[in-house]
């Protein structure tokens, strides 16, 4: 047995390094490093990121490489099938669908990003003020949000678009006028929860300054759900824009978005399905990409789910 091979010297005291003993066994990864590791493992979410990056690049170089632009119409070559000349074909005014698709990508992505950004800013300001001060301030601010939230989002946007002059920015404003509420609620919930969280209390009692508290604990811990919401706001905005375009309330000509392109193509869909196919395909692809990124982030940031 092992015992018999032991020497007396084995029974001398072992001096344990005090610091060694206090070290937490096992590698403790930071929250973000951990999250990033989980996100990287999610192939679907990663491909979503790649798709978005590619779409972003194409929205800038797509037009130039096609040798056409999005507004030049040529009635003689209207409604042409995809060919070497027009890669995605042409629409009913003879405009090159390839060029228009990438121009539309720019508009659609811009609308999505802008709407998400404005939601984020307004939502964070509103939500963190309400959450941080609590009490009456919180009650009034949230009551306002609740009332706005009670009215269906699309209905509000439609009504606003009916009365506002059509344009890219009015579209974005109409979308964000109630769109920020969701974000504000999430931010507020996070702030409220964190304020009472024990580790915040713990670091306060250990004498952590407010600034340290804010950046070391509050910000990183609220960022998760906010990032997820932000990612999922973008496809919602792109969808809303397309939806409005179908009602004729989208961006006005000559601007083109995937929504207006699909809407235009719908009338002659039976004869020229390709005209609908390309913009519709890219709407779906973009929404899919953002959705899988959002899902991937949620899974990565919330390990409980797994």
């Amino acid at each position, binding site marked *: 047995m092992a015992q018999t091979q032991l020497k007396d010297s084995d029974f001398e005291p072992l001096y344990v390094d005090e610091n060694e003993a206090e070290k937490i066994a096992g590698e403790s990864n930071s929250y973000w490093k951990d999250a990033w590791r989980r996100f990287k493992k999610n192939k679907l979410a990663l491909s979503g990121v790649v798709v978005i990056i590619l779409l972003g690049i194409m929205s800038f170089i797509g037009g130039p490489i096609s040798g056409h632009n999005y507004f030049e119409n040529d009635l003689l070559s209207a409604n042409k099938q995809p060919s070497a000349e027009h890669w995605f074909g042409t629409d009913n005014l003879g405009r090159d669908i390839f060029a228009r698709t990438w121009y539309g990508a720019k508009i659609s992505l811009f609308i999505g990003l802008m709407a998400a950004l404005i939601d984020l800013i307004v939502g964070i300001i509103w939500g963190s003020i309400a959450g941080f001060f609590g009490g009456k301030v919180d009650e009034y601010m949230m009551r306002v949000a609740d009332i706005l939230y009670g009215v269906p989002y699309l209905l509000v946007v439609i*009504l606003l678009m009916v009365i506002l002059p059509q344009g890219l920015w009015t579209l974005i404003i109409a979308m964000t006028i109630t769109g920020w509420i969701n974000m504000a609620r999430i931010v507020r919930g996070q702030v409220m929860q964190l304020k009472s969280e024990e580790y915040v209390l713990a670091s306060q009692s250990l004498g952590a300054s407010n600034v340290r508290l804010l950046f070391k604990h509050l910000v990183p811990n609220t960022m998760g759900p906010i990032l997820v919401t932000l990612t999922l706001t973008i496809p919602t905005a792109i969808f809303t824009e397309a*939806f409005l375009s179908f*009602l004729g309330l989208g961006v006005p000509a000559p601007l083109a978005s995937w929504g207006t392109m*699909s809407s235009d193509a719908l009338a002659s869909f039976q004869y020229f399905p390709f005209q609908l196919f390309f913009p*519709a395909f890219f709407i779906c692809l973009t929404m*899919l990409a953002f959705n*899988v990124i959002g899902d991937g982030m949620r899974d990565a940031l919330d390990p409980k*789910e797994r």
Partner: protein
Amino acid sequence: MARYLLKRLVYIVVSLFLIVTITFFLMQAAPGGPFASEKKLTPAIEAQMNEAYGLDEPLHVQYMNYVVNAFSFDFGPSFKYVGQDVTDIIARSFPYSLILGLEAIFIALSIGVLLGVVAAVKHNKFGDYTAMVIAVLGISVPSFIMATILQYIFAIKLGALPVGRFDTFWHSILPAVALATTPLAFIARLMRSSMLEVLNSDYIKTAKSKGMSQKVVTYKHGLRNAILPVVSYLGPLVVSILTGSFIIESIFGIPGLGSEFVQSVTNRDYTVIMGTTVFFSVLLLISILIVDLLYGLVDPRIKVTGKGGKS
């Protein structure tokens, strides 16, 4: 219970009042008068028409009239379709939307819950991945694109179902499916995550420790608890079906309230816009109330009392 209902009804009336007010002033702010887009009218005729529609009154009188009428469910005549009252238009078109909406809600709920449960039970296995791929596609494909695809495949190419209009049950299948797609996918995901959470909970362990079979544990103990978030999603579900109907009804040429609303938007038919908006709001507030009462039935922890339940 009675107190709770009363409180909720008061809340509904207040919300409605706000909505009526907001829509009224929004429409006042709209560019151009109601007859602006018609061919040029002589000033005399326009004045006559304004008088006929009560538009010559001062704003606050118009507003008062409007509020009083709105609460007696009279939204006046349509500006575009001479001789038709808004109420008539709603009464004529709503039944189509109602049937279509109920059908879509049924599809979304039954298939969504089923997919979610399958995904949770087969967590991280093939069934889970399949169900979640369907769900994420459902969320990513907007309903109008879904509608067009369905119409193209089943009606135009295969000729299996009618392309549009609304005469028989067969006409309603494609639009109902298109309408249900997005909420169905949402419900499936909601159901999955809620079911996963419940299946990891302590009381599921308790049930297992009593020797209950996997089936009993999943369906008797798990499902009842996991369905609660889906019940609270019913409110947003109604919203989603309702707004979805705007486009779906237009695509399938169904003479429902949704396409009526879209028509009024394109025509800038303000009385119809206001009337349908208020009607939609009533519909929503009532369905949210029903959902709340339902929630109290499903979850014994929520008591429907004056102290308020979940809202």
